[in-house]
């Protein structure tokens, strides 16, 4: 017969309860974002030494601005992926929002009314996505695949498939916001930094963030504990669409003209960035920093191919390699922790 209760004494117990298992350092190296960041940094250093064109301020300016657009959309995608879904419509929403911005400004209205309408159009797409996914329980893959087609088609209908390059009285403001720089930093990069901090804050500190993680890990548990799961899901898709909407407005300003193929197949680069940065397509994990360094890594690969004179046709191979590597890395870690 064993003794039923070998409870440790009170002081020992409270000490054990208040100890923390993970130190900050082990947590840092368990984070995929850290490794992707090191990979991106290493490639940048190698390129800096191997070429005399990489580390120029003009090239760095271009690299950061280029990945800022993918990074911005990846913020929303990361939140969607954490919640256990996927949003394939983001590329088309970028186009729709840019088109609404362009058409309204082209008609002689100012930047701000146009931006409000552009973001409203984006939010509406997210609302429809979210409602179909949360209430009708249609898989997010299917709903957003349909929306990918619908949103781009709407942009074509609105513009009659013309390119719009005249933006009325506030044209200069639009071009400055999308294409200009402050203190030598491209404005889209500043937008990415601000919205990235906001998103990271929401995920880490808000009740909404906790609920997004909970739904991604165990939706049934979220329902049973009384979380308003449908509303959280809807908010997640609206959030993703809004990020794509902001990107559309900025990209219109940077490109100086909007065509209906803007943002075509951008969703793939965005999902790649999120996954390389550690977002798990099964839901429940992902970080803002991971999405941003994932986007950076993709752009550095592209840039290095150009600078090293290698055909850019190789870009897809490298990005694909990193996607698989990132997921394999995650699997290996899971296997290892299952063993111990």
């Amino acid at each position, binding site marked *: 017969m064993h003794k039923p209760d070998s409870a440790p004494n009170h002081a020992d117990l409270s000490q054990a309860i208040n100890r923390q298992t993970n130190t900050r350092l082990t947590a840092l190296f368990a984070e995929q974002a850290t490794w992707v960041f090191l990979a991106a940094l290493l490639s940048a250093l190698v390129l800096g030494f191997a070429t005399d064109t990489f580390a120029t301020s003009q090239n760095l300016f271009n690299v950061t601005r280029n990945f800022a657009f993918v990074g911005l959309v990846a913020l929303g995608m990361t939140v969607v992926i954490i919640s256990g879904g996927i949003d394939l419509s983001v590329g088309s929403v970028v186009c729709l929002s840019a088109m609404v911005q362009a058409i309204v400004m082209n008609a002689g209205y100012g930047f701000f009314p146009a931006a409000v309408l552009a973001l409203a159009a984006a939010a509406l797409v997210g609302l429809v996505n979210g409602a179909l996914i949360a209430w009708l329980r249609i898989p997010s893959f299917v709903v957003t695949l349909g929306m990918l087609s619908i949103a781009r088609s709407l942009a074509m209908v609105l513009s009659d498939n013309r390119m719009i390059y005249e933006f009325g009285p506030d044209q200069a403001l639009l071009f400055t916001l999308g294409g200009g720089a402050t203190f030598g930093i491209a404005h889209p990069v500043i937008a990415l930094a601000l919205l990235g901090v906001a998103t990271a804050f929401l995920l880490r500190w808000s009740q909404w963030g906790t609920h997004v993680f*909970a739904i991604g890990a165990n939706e049934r548990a*979220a329902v049973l504990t009384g979380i308003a799961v449908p509303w959280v899901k809807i908010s997640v898709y609206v959030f993703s669409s809004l990020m794509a909407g902001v990107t559309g407005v900025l990209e219109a300003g940077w490109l100086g003209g909007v065509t209906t193929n803007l943002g075509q197949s951008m969703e793939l680069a965005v999902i790649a960035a999120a996954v390389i940065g550690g977002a798990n397509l099964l839901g429940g994990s992902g970080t803002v920093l991971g999405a941003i360094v994932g986007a950076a890594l993709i752009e550095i690969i592209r840039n290095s191919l150009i600078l090293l004179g290698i055909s850019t046709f190789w870009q897809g191979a490298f990005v694909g390699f990193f996607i698989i590597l990132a997921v394999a890395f995650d699997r290996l870690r899971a296997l290892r922790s299952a063993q111990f």
Partner: protein
Amino acid sequence: MAVLKLENVAKNFGAIEALRGVSLQIEKGEVIGLMGDNGAGKSTLVKIIAGNFRASAGRMFMQNREVAFHSPLDARRHGIEIVYQDLALCDNLTAAANVFLGRELTWRLGPVRINDYAAMNRRAAELFQELKSETRPRDLVRQMSGGQRQAVAIARTRLSNADIVLMDEPTAAISVRQVVEVLNLIRRLRDQGVAVVLISHRMPDVFGLADRVVVLRRGSIVADKPVAATSPQEVTGLITGAIEHA
């Protein structure tokens, strides 16, 4: 006065009569062992009490007032908590976040609700201390043992000071050492005046812990007696039908 009283509760799933004529009383701080063969209706019974299912017939009273629950949240507001067999935990969140899931302590920042992690960790640590479980509030549930995960699920029921905690086979899928740990957790609950309904297939759980044993067979209660007045042999006979009634 009974914290919970069921009167002639029945439940049909289409043509299947999962429960019929079930009457049961639960007193404060009492542990009831609910036993029965697979498909006898045990889970159905606790799910009716917990608000997951509506009864097809019969009445339910708490403190002599008739109640009817429309959802698990509704039952929870009346002081009934359930620990699901799979525990309903989120692996990617900390123990404290799981304890407070859906009931986070927050403060407002404009339209956003900000988690008060310090307060939640502190309260969760107190709850684990009360349960005498070595479970750390800030650790991820993913890294926890079966016993610690049970402690998290049980701590959840302590947040609201529930009067009744329903546990569906808490010892079904864990190691022997962890069974001891979980039974101790249930003792702590009882010591705090909580009534516990414990579904189990294991005689030692019920005979070591319960005050009363209730046996369900094909949807009806065939025995309801103090543990001291029966034996594992008799209960086994009641479960299988070798003994008709007791």
